[in-house]
Protein backbone atom coordinates (compact mmCIF):
# COMPACT_ATOMS: atom_id res chain seq x y z
CA UNK A 1 0.00 0.00 0.00
CA UNK A 2 1.39 3.36 -0.98
CA UNK A 3 2.05 5.75 1.88
CA UNK A 4 0.57 8.50 -0.26
CA UNK A 5 -2.77 6.78 -0.77
CA UNK A 6 -5.71 6.60 1.59
CA UNK A 7 -5.53 4.08 4.45
CA UNK A 8 -8.30 1.74 5.54
CA UNK A 9 -9.70 4.37 7.95
CA UNK A 10 -10.01 7.00 5.24
CA UNK A 11 -6.91 9.02 6.15
CA UNK A 12 -3.84 10.32 4.37
CA UNK A 13 -1.41 10.80 7.26
CA UNK A 14 -3.38 13.06 9.63
CA UNK A 15 -5.66 14.34 6.84
CA UNK A 16 -8.97 13.08 5.48
CA UNK A 17 -11.59 11.21 7.47
CA UNK A 18 -15.33 11.72 7.30
CA UNK A 19 -16.34 14.69 9.45
CA UNK A 20 -20.02 14.59 8.62
CA UNK A 21 -23.08 15.05 10.80
CA UNK A 22 -24.93 11.87 11.69
CA UNK A 23 -27.59 12.69 9.07
CA UNK A 24 -25.03 12.00 6.34
CA UNK A 25 -23.42 9.00 7.98
CA UNK A 26 -25.56 6.32 6.26
CA UNK A 27 -24.94 7.87 2.82
CA UNK A 28 -21.22 8.12 3.38
CA UNK A 29 -21.02 4.67 4.91
CA UNK A 30 -22.87 3.19 1.94
CA UNK A 31 -20.26 4.71 -0.37
CA UNK A 32 -17.37 3.67 1.88
CA UNK A 33 -18.40 0.05 1.90
CA UNK A 34 -19.33 -0.16 -1.77
CA UNK A 35 -17.21 2.10 -3.94
CA UNK A 36 -14.22 -0.20 -4.41
CA UNK A 37 -16.35 -3.24 -4.97
CA UNK A 38 -18.40 -1.45 -7.62
CA UNK A 39 -15.38 0.14 -9.30
CA UNK A 40 -13.60 -3.20 -9.54
CA UNK A 41 -16.57 -5.00 -10.99
CA UNK A 42 -15.79 -6.05 -14.60
CA UNK A 43 -19.10 -4.75 -15.96
CA UNK A 44 -18.45 -1.37 -14.36
CA UNK A 45 -14.94 -1.20 -15.79
CA UNK A 46 -16.16 -2.15 -19.21
CA UNK A 47 -18.86 0.52 -19.30
CA UNK A 48 -16.54 3.16 -17.82
CA UNK A 49 -13.79 2.44 -20.36
CA UNK A 50 -16.23 2.36 -23.22
CA UNK A 51 -17.77 5.72 -22.32
CA UNK A 52 -14.37 7.31 -21.80
CA UNK A 53 -13.36 6.15 -25.26
CA UNK A 54 -16.50 6.75 -27.30
CA UNK A 55 -18.18 9.58 -25.41
CA UNK A 56 -15.34 11.56 -23.81
CA UNK A 57 -12.85 10.91 -26.61
CA UNK A 58 -10.06 9.29 -24.61
CA UNK A 59 -7.20 8.70 -24.58
CA UNK A 60 -6.50 12.41 -24.58
CA UNK A 61 -3.36 13.24 -26.56
CA UNK A 62 0.02 13.77 -24.95
CA UNK A 63 1.31 16.61 -27.04
CA UNK A 64 4.96 17.53 -27.37
CA UNK A 65 4.86 21.33 -27.30
CA UNK A 66 7.98 22.07 -29.31
CA UNK A 67 7.98 25.85 -29.35
CA UNK A 68 7.16 25.98 -25.64
CA UNK A 69 9.93 23.45 -25.00
CA UNK A 70 12.41 25.54 -26.92
CA UNK A 71 11.47 28.65 -25.01
CA UNK A 72 12.12 27.05 -21.61
CA UNK A 73 14.91 24.64 -22.50
CA UNK A 74 13.17 21.41 -21.51
CA UNK A 75 11.11 18.75 -23.25
CA UNK A 76 7.57 19.76 -22.37
CA UNK A 77 4.53 17.61 -22.97
CA UNK A 78 0.96 18.78 -22.46
CA UNK A 79 -1.62 16.24 -21.34
CA UNK A 80 -4.58 17.46 -23.36
CA UNK A 81 -7.53 17.14 -20.98
CA UNK A 82 -8.86 20.27 -22.68
CA UNK A 83 -9.80 18.10 -25.66
CA UNK A 84 -12.25 16.00 -23.64
CA UNK A 85 -15.98 16.30 -24.21
CA UNK A 86 -17.23 19.34 -22.24
CA UNK A 87 -13.76 20.84 -22.32
CA UNK A 88 -12.01 19.70 -19.17
CA UNK A 89 -10.92 16.77 -17.02
CA UNK A 90 -14.11 17.05 -14.91
CA UNK A 91 -16.01 14.60 -17.12
CA UNK A 92 -13.71 11.68 -16.15
CA UNK A 93 -15.10 11.86 -12.63
CA UNK A 94 -18.75 12.50 -13.48
CA UNK A 95 -18.84 9.51 -15.85
CA UNK A 96 -17.46 7.33 -13.08
CA UNK A 97 -19.83 8.63 -10.43
CA UNK A 98 -22.97 8.42 -12.57
CA UNK A 99 -22.24 4.75 -13.23
CA UNK A 100 -21.71 4.26 -9.51
CA UNK A 101 -24.95 6.10 -8.68
CA UNK A 102 -26.86 3.87 -11.09
CA UNK A 103 -25.50 0.76 -9.42
CA UNK A 104 -26.47 2.14 -6.02
CA UNK A 105 -30.01 2.56 -7.32
CA UNK A 106 -30.05 6.36 -6.94
CA UNK A 107 -32.68 8.30 -8.85
CA UNK A 108 -31.56 11.85 -8.31
CA UNK A 109 -28.18 13.57 -8.70
CA UNK A 110 -26.97 16.72 -6.99
CA UNK A 111 -23.74 18.63 -7.52
CA UNK A 112 -22.01 21.89 -6.63
CA UNK A 113 -20.26 24.06 -9.14
CA UNK A 114 -18.13 27.19 -9.13
CA UNK A 115 -17.44 28.36 -12.67
CA UNK A 116 -19.85 25.78 -13.95
CA UNK A 117 -17.46 23.23 -15.48
CA UNK A 118 -18.29 20.49 -12.99
CA UNK A 119 -21.96 21.45 -13.16
CA UNK A 120 -21.90 21.08 -16.93
CA UNK A 121 -20.04 17.77 -16.69
CA UNK A 122 -22.64 16.52 -14.20
CA UNK A 123 -25.63 17.77 -16.20
CA UNK A 124 -24.08 16.06 -19.22
CA UNK A 125 -23.89 12.61 -17.66
CA UNK A 126 -27.37 13.01 -16.17
CA UNK A 127 -28.73 13.73 -19.64
CA UNK A 128 -26.80 10.71 -20.89
CA UNK A 129 -28.41 8.48 -18.27
CA UNK A 130 -31.77 10.18 -17.96
CA UNK A 131 -31.43 11.00 -14.27
CA UNK A 132 -32.83 14.04 -12.47
CA UNK A 133 -30.10 16.64 -11.87
CA UNK A 134 -29.94 19.57 -9.46
CA UNK A 135 -26.85 21.79 -9.52
CA UNK A 136 -26.10 24.28 -6.75
CA UNK A 137 -24.23 27.35 -7.86
CA UNK A 138 -23.44 30.57 -6.02
CA UNK A 139 -25.74 33.43 -6.93
CA UNK A 140 -22.75 35.54 -7.92
CA UNK A 141 -21.28 32.75 -10.07
CA UNK A 142 -24.62 32.34 -11.86
CA UNK A 143 -24.37 35.95 -12.95
CA UNK A 144 -20.70 35.59 -13.94
CA UNK A 145 -21.06 32.33 -15.86
CA UNK A 146 -24.24 32.70 -17.91
CA UNK A 147 -23.18 30.42 -20.82
CA UNK A 148 -22.52 27.48 -18.49
CA UNK A 149 -25.84 28.05 -16.71
CA UNK A 150 -27.52 27.91 -20.14
CA UNK A 151 -25.67 24.68 -21.02
CA UNK A 152 -26.85 23.00 -17.83
CA UNK A 153 -30.43 24.10 -18.41
CA UNK A 154 -30.37 22.86 -22.01
CA UNK A 155 -29.36 19.46 -20.67
CA UNK A 156 -32.34 19.45 -18.35
CA UNK A 157 -30.62 20.29 -15.06
CA UNK A 158 -32.19 22.52 -12.48
CA UNK A 159 -29.71 25.21 -11.42
CA UNK A 160 -30.35 26.42 -7.87
CA UNK A 161 -28.80 29.65 -6.63
CA UNK A 162 -26.85 29.42 -3.37
CA UNK A 163 -27.70 32.65 -1.62
CA UNK A 164 -25.94 32.08 1.71
CA UNK A 165 -22.52 33.38 2.77
CA UNK A 166 -20.35 34.69 -0.05
CA UNK A 167 -22.65 33.17 -2.69
CA UNK A 168 -19.79 31.33 -4.43
CA UNK A 169 -18.36 27.78 -4.63
CA UNK A 170 -17.96 27.20 -0.89
CA UNK A 171 -21.60 28.11 -0.31
CA UNK A 172 -22.80 26.06 -3.27
CA UNK A 173 -21.05 23.09 -1.61
CA UNK A 174 -22.79 23.86 1.69
CA UNK A 175 -26.17 23.94 -0.08
CA UNK A 176 -25.50 20.64 -1.85
CA UNK A 177 -24.62 19.03 1.50
CA UNK A 178 -27.85 20.41 3.00
CA UNK A 179 -29.82 18.98 0.09
CA UNK A 180 -28.19 15.59 0.70
CA UNK A 181 -29.11 15.73 4.40
CA UNK A 182 -32.73 16.36 3.45
CA UNK A 183 -32.78 13.68 0.72
CA UNK A 184 -30.74 10.84 2.15
CA UNK A 185 -32.17 7.82 0.40
CA UNK A 186 -32.68 8.41 -3.31
CA UNK A 187 -29.97 11.00 -4.00
CA UNK A 188 -26.29 10.72 -4.92
CA UNK A 189 -24.03 13.73 -4.50
CA UNK A 190 -21.42 13.99 -7.27
CA UNK A 191 -18.63 16.00 -5.68
CA UNK A 192 -16.45 17.58 -8.33
CA UNK A 193 -13.07 17.55 -6.69
CA UNK A 194 -10.86 15.45 -4.40
CA UNK A 195 -12.50 17.01 -1.36
CA UNK A 196 -15.35 15.95 0.93
CA UNK A 197 -15.66 13.07 3.37
CA UNK A 198 -13.95 9.74 2.75
CA UNK A 199 -14.33 8.02 0.27
CA UNK A 200 -14.78 11.01 -2.06
CA UNK A 201 -11.14 12.15 -2.22
CA UNK A 202 -9.98 8.62 -3.07
CA UNK A 203 -12.90 7.84 -5.36
CA UNK A 204 -12.48 11.03 -7.41
CA UNK A 205 -8.69 10.55 -7.56
CA UNK A 206 -9.20 7.02 -8.88
CA UNK A 207 -11.56 8.24 -11.59
CA UNK A 208 -9.08 10.97 -12.54
CA UNK A 209 -6.08 8.62 -12.37
CA UNK A 210 -6.74 7.75 -16.02
CA UNK A 211 -4.76 10.95 -16.72
CA UNK A 212 -1.46 9.61 -15.37
CA UNK A 213 -2.14 6.06 -16.51
CA UNK A 214 -2.40 7.20 -20.12
CA UNK A 215 0.55 9.54 -19.68
CA UNK A 216 2.82 6.65 -18.70
CA UNK A 217 1.89 4.64 -21.79
CA UNK A 218 2.15 7.63 -24.08
CA UNK A 219 5.51 8.71 -22.70
CA UNK A 220 6.90 5.23 -23.10
CA UNK A 221 5.82 5.25 -26.70
CA UNK A 222 7.24 8.70 -27.41
CA UNK A 223 10.42 8.73 -25.34
CA UNK A 224 11.13 5.12 -24.48
CA UNK A 225 10.67 5.86 -20.78
CA UNK A 226 7.39 5.76 -18.82
CA UNK A 227 8.38 8.42 -16.29
CA UNK A 228 9.07 12.09 -16.84
CA UNK A 229 11.38 14.05 -14.56
CA UNK A 230 8.62 16.43 -13.49
CA UNK A 231 4.82 16.41 -13.49
CA UNK A 232 2.91 19.64 -12.91
CA UNK A 233 -0.71 20.64 -12.44
CA UNK A 234 -2.79 23.44 -11.00
CA UNK A 235 -4.60 22.92 -7.70
CA UNK A 236 -7.90 24.35 -6.45
CA UNK A 237 -9.52 21.44 -4.68
CA UNK A 238 -7.03 19.43 -6.70
CA UNK A 239 -8.74 16.84 -8.89
CA UNK A 240 -6.78 17.26 -12.11
CA UNK A 241 -3.56 17.31 -10.07
CA UNK A 242 -4.59 14.18 -8.16
CA UNK A 243 -5.17 12.42 -11.49
CA UNK A 244 -1.95 13.73 -13.02
CA UNK A 245 0.12 12.68 -9.99
CA UNK A 246 -1.61 9.38 -9.17
CA UNK A 247 0.65 6.84 -10.90
CA UNK A 248 3.80 8.84 -10.19
CA UNK A 249 3.44 9.20 -6.42
CA UNK A 250 5.51 6.13 -5.65
CA UNK A 251 8.09 6.94 -8.32
CA UNK A 252 10.21 9.00 -5.97
CA UNK A 253 12.47 10.22 -8.78
CA UNK A 254 9.57 12.06 -10.40
CA UNK A 255 9.25 15.60 -9.07
CA UNK A 256 5.68 16.60 -8.34
CA UNK A 257 4.77 20.27 -8.59
CA UNK A 258 1.35 21.66 -7.71
CA UNK A 259 0.52 25.27 -8.52
CA UNK A 260 -2.06 27.12 -6.46
CA UNK A 261 -3.70 30.43 -7.31
CA UNK A 262 -2.01 33.35 -5.56
CA UNK A 263 -4.67 35.78 -6.79
CA UNK A 264 -3.31 39.30 -6.43
CA UNK A 265 -0.39 37.92 -4.40
CA UNK A 266 0.08 35.59 -1.44
CA UNK A 267 0.34 38.48 1.04
CA UNK A 268 -2.43 40.69 -0.32
CA UNK A 269 -5.41 39.08 1.38
CA UNK A 270 -6.85 38.45 -2.11
CA UNK A 271 -5.56 34.96 -2.73
CA UNK A 272 -6.36 31.26 -2.83
CA UNK A 273 -2.84 30.02 -1.97
CA UNK A 274 -4.03 27.52 0.62
CA UNK A 275 -0.78 25.75 1.53
CA UNK A 276 1.05 29.07 1.87
CA UNK A 277 -1.48 30.54 4.29
CA UNK A 278 -3.67 27.74 5.59
CA UNK A 279 -3.86 25.87 8.86
CA UNK A 280 -5.05 22.37 9.59
CA UNK A 281 -8.82 22.24 9.94
CA UNK A 282 -12.10 20.65 8.87
CA UNK A 283 -14.24 21.86 5.98
CA UNK A 284 -16.82 20.02 3.86
CA UNK A 285 -16.30 16.72 5.61
CA UNK A 286 -12.57 16.23 5.75
CA UNK A 287 -9.56 17.30 7.75
CA UNK A 288 -7.13 19.15 5.54
CA UNK A 289 -5.41 22.50 5.23
CA UNK A 290 -7.66 25.51 4.83
CA UNK A 291 -7.56 29.28 4.89
CA UNK A 292 -9.22 30.41 8.08
CA UNK A 293 -9.18 32.95 10.87
CA UNK A 294 -7.67 32.35 14.30
CA UNK A 295 -11.19 31.51 15.48
CA UNK A 296 -11.61 28.80 12.84
CA UNK A 297 -13.92 30.70 10.51
CA UNK A 298 -13.28 29.93 6.85
CA UNK A 299 -11.81 32.83 4.89
CA UNK A 300 -13.12 33.82 1.47
CA UNK A 301 -10.52 33.06 -1.19
CA UNK A 302 -9.88 35.05 -4.34
CA UNK A 303 -8.52 34.11 -7.74
CA UNK A 304 -9.22 35.32 -11.27
CA UNK A 305 -9.79 31.66 -12.01
CA UNK A 306 -13.14 30.46 -10.64
CA UNK A 307 -11.97 26.84 -10.67
CA UNK A 308 -9.15 27.57 -8.21
CA UNK A 309 -11.19 29.91 -6.02
CA UNK A 310 -11.54 27.52 -3.06
CA UNK A 311 -10.27 28.02 0.52
CA UNK A 312 -9.05 24.45 0.99
CA UNK A 313 -7.29 21.61 -0.81
CA UNK A 314 -8.04 17.91 -0.88
CA UNK A 315 -6.64 15.87 2.03
CA UNK A 316 -4.26 13.92 -0.20
CA UNK A 317 -2.72 17.19 -1.34
CA UNK A 318 -2.42 18.33 2.26
CA UNK A 319 -0.50 15.12 2.93
CA UNK A 320 1.73 15.41 -0.17
CA UNK A 321 2.52 18.96 0.93
CA UNK A 322 3.11 18.11 4.60
CA UNK A 323 5.19 15.02 3.86
CA UNK A 324 7.32 16.92 1.39
CA UNK A 325 6.50 14.56 -1.50
CA UNK A 326 5.01 17.39 -3.53
CA UNK A 327 6.25 20.94 -4.10
CA UNK A 328 3.36 23.35 -3.61
CA UNK A 329 3.90 26.74 -5.21
CA UNK A 330 1.64 29.49 -6.50
CA UNK A 331 1.11 31.80 -9.46
CA UNK A 332 -0.63 35.18 -9.43
CA UNK A 333 -3.49 36.30 -11.68
CA UNK A 334 -1.03 38.28 -13.79
CA UNK A 335 1.46 35.46 -14.14
CA UNK A 336 -1.30 33.05 -15.16
CA UNK A 337 -2.83 35.40 -17.71
CA UNK A 338 0.56 36.00 -19.34
CA UNK A 339 1.26 32.28 -19.44
CA UNK A 340 -2.13 31.66 -21.05
CA UNK A 341 -1.40 34.20 -23.75
CA UNK A 342 2.07 32.78 -24.31
CA UNK A 343 0.76 29.26 -24.89
CA UNK A 344 -1.80 30.63 -27.32
CA UNK A 345 0.87 32.43 -29.30
CA UNK A 346 3.48 29.67 -29.26
CA UNK A 347 1.24 26.63 -29.71
CA UNK A 348 -2.18 27.82 -30.88
CA UNK A 349 -3.87 26.46 -27.78
CA UNK A 350 -6.03 28.70 -25.59
CA UNK A 351 -5.87 27.19 -22.09
CA UNK A 352 -8.36 27.55 -19.26
CA UNK A 353 -7.10 30.13 -16.79
CA UNK A 354 -6.86 27.35 -14.21
CA UNK A 355 -4.39 25.44 -16.39
CA UNK A 356 -2.52 28.67 -17.12
CA UNK A 357 -1.47 28.72 -13.47
CA UNK A 358 0.49 25.50 -13.97
CA UNK A 359 2.08 26.90 -17.14
CA UNK A 360 3.01 30.10 -15.32
CA UNK A 361 5.35 28.25 -13.00
CA UNK A 362 7.63 27.37 -15.93
CA UNK A 363 8.91 30.95 -15.80
CA UNK A 364 10.31 30.36 -12.32
CA UNK A 365 12.01 27.04 -13.05
CA UNK A 366 15.59 26.41 -14.11
CA UNK A 367 16.17 23.60 -16.57
CA UNK A 368 19.47 22.10 -17.67
CA UNK A 369 18.13 21.14 -21.07
CA UNK A 370 17.41 17.44 -20.83
CA UNK A 371 14.44 17.25 -18.45
CA UNK A 372 11.13 15.83 -19.52
CA UNK A 373 8.17 17.73 -18.10
CA UNK A 374 4.48 16.81 -18.29
CA UNK A 375 1.94 19.53 -17.57
CA UNK A 376 -1.74 18.75 -17.20
CA UNK A 377 -3.66 21.07 -19.49
CA UNK A 378 -6.81 20.53 -17.47
CA UNK A 379 -9.25 22.60 -19.53
CA UNK A 380 -9.77 24.75 -22.57
CA UNK A 381 -10.08 28.50 -22.48
CA UNK A 382 -13.36 28.99 -24.33
CA UNK A 383 -15.19 29.61 -21.07
CA UNK A 384 -12.60 32.25 -20.14
CA UNK A 385 -12.73 34.38 -23.29
CA UNK A 386 -14.55 37.16 -21.43
CA UNK A 387 -11.76 37.28 -18.89
CA UNK A 388 -9.01 37.17 -21.51
CA UNK A 389 -10.78 39.90 -23.50
CA UNK A 390 -11.06 42.18 -20.50
CA UNK A 391 -7.55 41.53 -19.27
CA UNK A 392 -5.79 42.06 -22.61
CA UNK A 393 -8.24 44.65 -23.99
CA UNK A 394 -8.93 42.44 -27.01
Amino acid at each position, binding site marked *: MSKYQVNS*KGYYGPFG*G*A*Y*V*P*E*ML*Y*PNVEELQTQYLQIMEDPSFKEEFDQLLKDYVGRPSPLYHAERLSKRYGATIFLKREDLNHTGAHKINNTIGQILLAERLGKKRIIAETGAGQHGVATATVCALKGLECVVYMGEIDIQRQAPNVARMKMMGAQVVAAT*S*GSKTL*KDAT*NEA*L*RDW*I*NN*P*VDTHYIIGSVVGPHPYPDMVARFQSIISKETKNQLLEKTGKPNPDIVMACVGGGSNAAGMFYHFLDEENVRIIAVEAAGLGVDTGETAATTALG*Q*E*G*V*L*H*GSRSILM*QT*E*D*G*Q*VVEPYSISAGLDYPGIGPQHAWLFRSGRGEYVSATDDEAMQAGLLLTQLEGIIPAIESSHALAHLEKMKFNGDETVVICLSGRGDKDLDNYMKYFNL
Partner: protein
Amino acid sequence: MQLNKHTNGLLSIYFTAGYPTLDSTVQIAKTLEEAGVDFLEIGFPYSDPVADGPVIQHSSEVALKNGMTLKVLFEQLKDLRKHVSIPVFLMGYVNPVIQYGVENFCRSCKEVGVNGTIIPDLPMYEYEELYKGVFEENGISNIFLVTPQTSEDRIRKIDSLSSGFIYLLSSNATTGKNLQVEDKAEAYFKRIKDLDLDNPFVIGFGISNKETFAKATTYANGAIIGSAFVKLLAEENYLERIPDFIRSFR
Protein backbone atom coordinates in the same frame (compact mmCIF):
# COMPACT_ATOMS: atom_id res chain seq x y z
CA MET B 1 -23.56 15.40 33.41
CA GLN B 2 -26.44 13.01 33.16
CA LEU B 3 -30.05 14.06 32.67
CA ASN B 4 -32.40 11.92 34.71
CA LYS B 5 -33.64 8.99 32.67
CA HIS B 6 -36.89 8.90 34.59
CA THR B 7 -37.81 12.54 34.12
CA ASN B 8 -40.28 13.40 31.43
CA GLY B 9 -41.39 16.49 29.57
CA LEU B 10 -38.03 18.27 29.70
CA LEU B 11 -37.99 21.45 27.64
CA SER B 12 -34.74 22.66 26.21
CA ILE B 13 -33.88 25.72 24.15
CA TYR B 14 -31.13 26.29 21.58
CA PHE B 15 -29.91 29.77 20.76
CA THR B 16 -26.86 31.20 19.03
CA ALA B 17 -24.35 33.04 21.19
CA GLY B 18 -23.78 36.63 20.10
CA TYR B 19 -27.22 36.93 18.50
CA PRO B 20 -29.05 39.28 18.24
CA THR B 21 -26.30 41.33 19.91
CA LEU B 22 -22.81 40.36 20.98
CA ASP B 23 -23.52 40.53 24.71
CA SER B 24 -27.06 39.10 24.76
CA THR B 25 -25.91 35.55 25.56
CA VAL B 26 -26.01 35.37 29.35
CA GLN B 27 -29.12 37.53 29.71
CA ILE B 28 -31.05 35.20 27.40
CA ALA B 29 -29.83 32.15 29.33
CA LYS B 30 -30.90 33.69 32.63
CA THR B 31 -34.33 34.66 31.29
CA LEU B 32 -34.87 31.15 29.91
CA GLU B 33 -34.09 29.57 33.26
CA GLU B 34 -36.54 31.94 34.98
CA ALA B 35 -39.17 30.99 32.41
CA GLY B 36 -38.88 27.35 33.45
CA VAL B 37 -36.61 25.88 30.78
CA ASP B 38 -34.90 22.69 31.96
CA PHE B 39 -31.60 22.87 30.07
CA LEU B 40 -29.88 24.92 27.40
CA GLU B 41 -27.86 24.57 24.24
CA ILE B 42 -25.78 27.63 23.47
CA GLY B 43 -24.53 27.64 19.89
CA PHE B 44 -21.13 28.97 18.93
CA PRO B 45 -21.23 30.23 15.34
CA TYR B 46 -19.37 28.86 12.31
CA SER B 47 -19.01 30.28 8.81
CA ASP B 48 -20.19 27.06 7.11
CA PRO B 49 -23.02 25.49 9.13
CA VAL B 50 -24.02 22.66 6.79
CA ALA B 51 -26.53 21.01 9.14
CA ASP B 52 -28.49 24.21 9.62
CA GLY B 53 -31.42 25.73 7.78
CA PRO B 54 -31.83 29.44 6.97
CA VAL B 55 -32.82 30.67 10.47
CA ILE B 56 -29.75 29.39 12.29
CA GLN B 57 -27.51 30.17 9.31
CA HIS B 58 -28.66 33.75 9.62
CA SER B 59 -28.16 33.94 13.38
CA SER B 60 -24.66 32.50 12.94
CA GLU B 61 -23.79 35.04 10.28
CA VAL B 62 -25.01 37.94 12.43
CA ALA B 63 -23.21 36.58 15.51
CA LEU B 64 -19.93 36.36 13.58
CA LYS B 65 -20.41 39.92 12.30
CA ASN B 66 -21.06 40.98 15.90
CA GLY B 67 -17.64 39.59 16.78
CA MET B 68 -18.58 36.34 18.50
CA THR B 69 -15.74 33.82 18.80
CA LEU B 70 -15.12 30.94 21.19
CA LYS B 71 -12.69 33.15 23.10
CA VAL B 72 -15.31 35.86 23.51
CA LEU B 73 -17.94 33.31 24.46
CA PHE B 74 -15.89 31.75 27.24
CA GLU B 75 -15.14 35.25 28.53
CA GLN B 76 -18.89 35.99 28.60
CA LEU B 77 -19.62 32.69 30.35
CA LYS B 78 -17.10 33.35 33.14
CA ASP B 79 -19.92 34.28 35.52
CA LEU B 80 -22.46 31.91 33.99
CA ARG B 81 -22.91 29.92 37.15
CA LYS B 82 -23.69 33.04 39.18
CA HIS B 83 -26.81 33.50 37.09
CA VAL B 84 -27.76 30.14 35.65
CA SER B 85 -28.07 26.81 37.46
CA ILE B 86 -29.69 24.52 34.85
CA PRO B 87 -27.45 22.31 32.67
CA VAL B 88 -25.78 24.09 29.77
CA PHE B 89 -24.40 22.46 26.61
CA LEU B 90 -22.35 24.20 23.94
CA MET B 91 -23.29 23.33 20.38
CA GLY B 92 -21.32 24.04 17.22
CA TYR B 93 -19.09 22.75 14.47
CA VAL B 94 -15.72 21.11 14.98
CA ASN B 95 -13.42 23.52 13.14
CA PRO B 96 -13.55 26.40 15.64
CA VAL B 97 -12.95 23.80 18.38
CA ILE B 98 -9.86 22.48 16.58
CA GLN B 99 -8.46 26.01 16.23
CA TYR B 100 -9.17 26.80 19.88
CA GLY B 101 -7.49 23.51 20.74
CA VAL B 102 -9.65 20.57 21.80
CA GLU B 103 -7.91 20.28 25.14
CA ASN B 104 -8.20 24.01 25.83
CA PHE B 105 -11.83 23.85 24.77
CA CYS B 106 -12.65 21.09 27.25
CA ARG B 107 -10.76 22.90 30.00
CA SER B 108 -12.58 26.18 29.29
CA CYS B 109 -15.93 24.37 29.34
CA LYS B 110 -15.06 22.93 32.74
CA GLU B 111 -13.87 26.28 34.10
CA VAL B 112 -17.07 28.14 33.26
CA GLY B 113 -19.34 25.28 34.28
CA VAL B 114 -20.54 24.06 30.90
CA ASN B 115 -21.79 20.48 31.25
CA GLY B 116 -21.33 19.11 27.79
CA THR B 117 -21.01 19.67 24.08
CA ILE B 118 -22.86 18.82 20.88
CA ILE B 119 -20.57 18.86 17.83
CA PRO B 120 -22.54 17.41 14.93
CA ASP B 121 -19.63 17.09 12.51
CA LEU B 122 -17.36 15.34 14.99
CA PRO B 123 -18.29 11.74 14.22
CA MET B 124 -18.13 8.89 16.66
CA TYR B 125 -14.99 7.31 15.18
CA GLU B 126 -12.91 10.49 15.37
CA TYR B 127 -14.23 11.31 18.85
CA GLU B 128 -13.32 7.89 20.15
CA GLU B 129 -9.91 7.76 18.48
CA LEU B 130 -8.73 11.28 19.12
CA TYR B 131 -10.68 13.12 21.78
CA LYS B 132 -12.58 10.88 24.19
CA GLY B 133 -9.80 10.95 26.78
CA VAL B 134 -9.61 14.70 27.06
CA PHE B 135 -13.40 15.11 27.23
CA GLU B 136 -13.63 12.57 30.04
CA GLU B 137 -10.70 14.01 31.99
CA ASN B 138 -12.53 17.30 32.15
CA GLY B 139 -15.91 15.76 32.89
CA ILE B 140 -17.44 17.09 29.67
CA SER B 141 -20.26 14.97 28.21
CA ASN B 142 -20.20 14.77 24.45
CA ILE B 143 -23.69 14.35 23.00
CA PHE B 144 -24.23 12.31 19.83
CA LEU B 145 -27.01 12.57 17.29
CA VAL B 146 -29.25 9.74 16.13
CA THR B 147 -31.38 9.95 12.98
CA PRO B 148 -34.16 7.75 11.52
CA GLN B 149 -31.45 6.13 9.36
CA THR B 150 -29.10 5.24 12.22
CA SER B 151 -28.81 1.47 12.61
CA GLU B 152 -29.57 -0.22 15.93
CA ASP B 153 -25.96 -1.40 16.27
CA ARG B 154 -24.74 2.14 15.91
CA ILE B 155 -27.34 3.46 18.37
CA ARG B 156 -26.16 0.89 20.94
CA LYS B 157 -22.57 2.00 20.37
CA ILE B 158 -23.57 5.65 20.74
CA ASP B 159 -25.43 4.76 23.95
CA SER B 160 -22.31 3.15 25.36
CA LEU B 161 -20.17 6.21 24.52
CA SER B 162 -22.69 8.74 25.82
CA SER B 163 -22.84 10.21 29.28
CA GLY B 164 -25.44 12.98 29.12
CA PHE B 165 -28.29 12.26 26.79
CA ILE B 166 -28.84 11.15 23.23
CA TYR B 167 -29.99 13.77 20.75
CA LEU B 168 -32.63 12.23 18.54
CA LEU B 169 -33.28 14.06 15.27
CA SER B 170 -36.98 14.10 14.49
CA SER B 171 -36.26 13.41 10.82
CA ASN B 172 -33.38 13.42 8.37
CA ALA B 173 -33.27 17.15 7.82
CA THR B 174 -31.43 20.38 8.43
CA THR B 175 -32.64 22.54 11.32
CA GLY B 176 -35.81 24.59 11.12
CA LYS B 177 -38.03 22.30 9.06
CA ASN B 178 -41.35 21.82 10.83
CA LEU B 179 -41.82 18.29 12.03
CA GLN B 180 -44.60 16.46 10.25
CA VAL B 181 -46.27 14.51 13.01
CA GLU B 182 -47.22 11.43 11.15
CA ASP B 183 -47.25 7.71 11.78
CA LYS B 184 -43.73 7.29 10.41
CA ALA B 185 -42.21 9.71 12.89
CA GLU B 186 -44.15 8.20 15.78
CA ALA B 187 -43.10 4.69 14.83
CA TYR B 188 -39.49 5.85 14.84
CA PHE B 189 -39.80 7.54 18.25
CA LYS B 190 -41.42 4.40 19.64
CA ARG B 191 -38.71 2.18 18.14
CA ILE B 192 -36.06 4.20 19.99
CA LYS B 193 -38.04 4.20 23.24
CA ASP B 194 -38.39 0.44 23.01
CA LEU B 195 -34.61 0.05 22.78
CA ASP B 196 -34.58 0.99 26.48
CA LEU B 197 -31.21 2.73 26.21
CA ASP B 198 -29.04 3.53 29.23
CA ASN B 199 -29.13 7.24 28.42
CA PRO B 200 -32.20 9.46 28.34
CA PHE B 201 -33.04 10.81 24.91
CA VAL B 202 -34.45 14.11 23.77
CA ILE B 203 -35.85 15.00 20.38
CA GLY B 204 -34.78 18.02 18.41
CA PHE B 205 -35.07 19.55 14.91
CA GLY B 206 -38.54 20.64 13.81
CA ILE B 207 -40.07 21.12 17.28
CA SER B 208 -41.91 24.40 16.83
CA ASN B 209 -45.23 24.31 18.70
CA LYS B 210 -47.26 22.70 21.47
CA GLU B 211 -48.40 19.85 19.27
CA THR B 212 -44.95 18.76 18.11
CA PHE B 213 -43.54 19.21 21.62
CA ALA B 214 -46.30 17.04 23.10
CA LYS B 215 -45.84 14.35 20.48
CA ALA B 216 -42.07 14.25 20.98
CA THR B 217 -42.28 14.09 24.76
CA THR B 218 -44.81 11.26 24.63
CA TYR B 219 -41.84 9.07 23.73
CA ALA B 220 -38.71 11.01 24.68
CA ASN B 221 -37.57 12.45 28.00
CA GLY B 222 -37.66 15.89 26.50
CA ALA B 223 -37.52 18.03 23.39
CA ILE B 224 -35.33 20.84 22.09
CA ILE B 225 -36.61 23.97 20.41
CA GLY B 226 -34.10 25.80 18.21
CA SER B 227 -35.10 27.68 15.08
CA ALA B 228 -38.54 28.63 16.43
CA PHE B 229 -36.86 30.33 19.40
CA VAL B 230 -34.10 31.96 17.33
CA LYS B 231 -36.86 33.54 15.22
CA LEU B 232 -38.29 35.13 18.37
CA LEU B 233 -34.92 36.75 19.07
CA ALA B 234 -35.27 38.79 15.89
CA GLU B 235 -38.27 40.60 17.36
CA GLU B 236 -38.33 43.67 19.53
CA ASN B 237 -38.55 43.20 23.30
CA TYR B 238 -37.67 39.57 22.87
CA LEU B 239 -36.63 39.19 26.53
CA GLU B 240 -40.10 40.17 27.76
CA ARG B 241 -41.69 37.75 25.34
CA ILE B 242 -39.68 34.72 26.42
CA PRO B 243 -41.99 33.60 29.29
CA ASP B 244 -45.07 33.54 27.02
CA PHE B 245 -43.11 31.73 24.35
CA ILE B 246 -42.07 28.99 26.77
CA ARG B 247 -45.59 28.72 28.26
CA SER B 248 -47.02 28.18 24.78
CA PHE B 249 -45.29 24.78 24.57
CA ARG B 250 -46.63 23.30 27.79
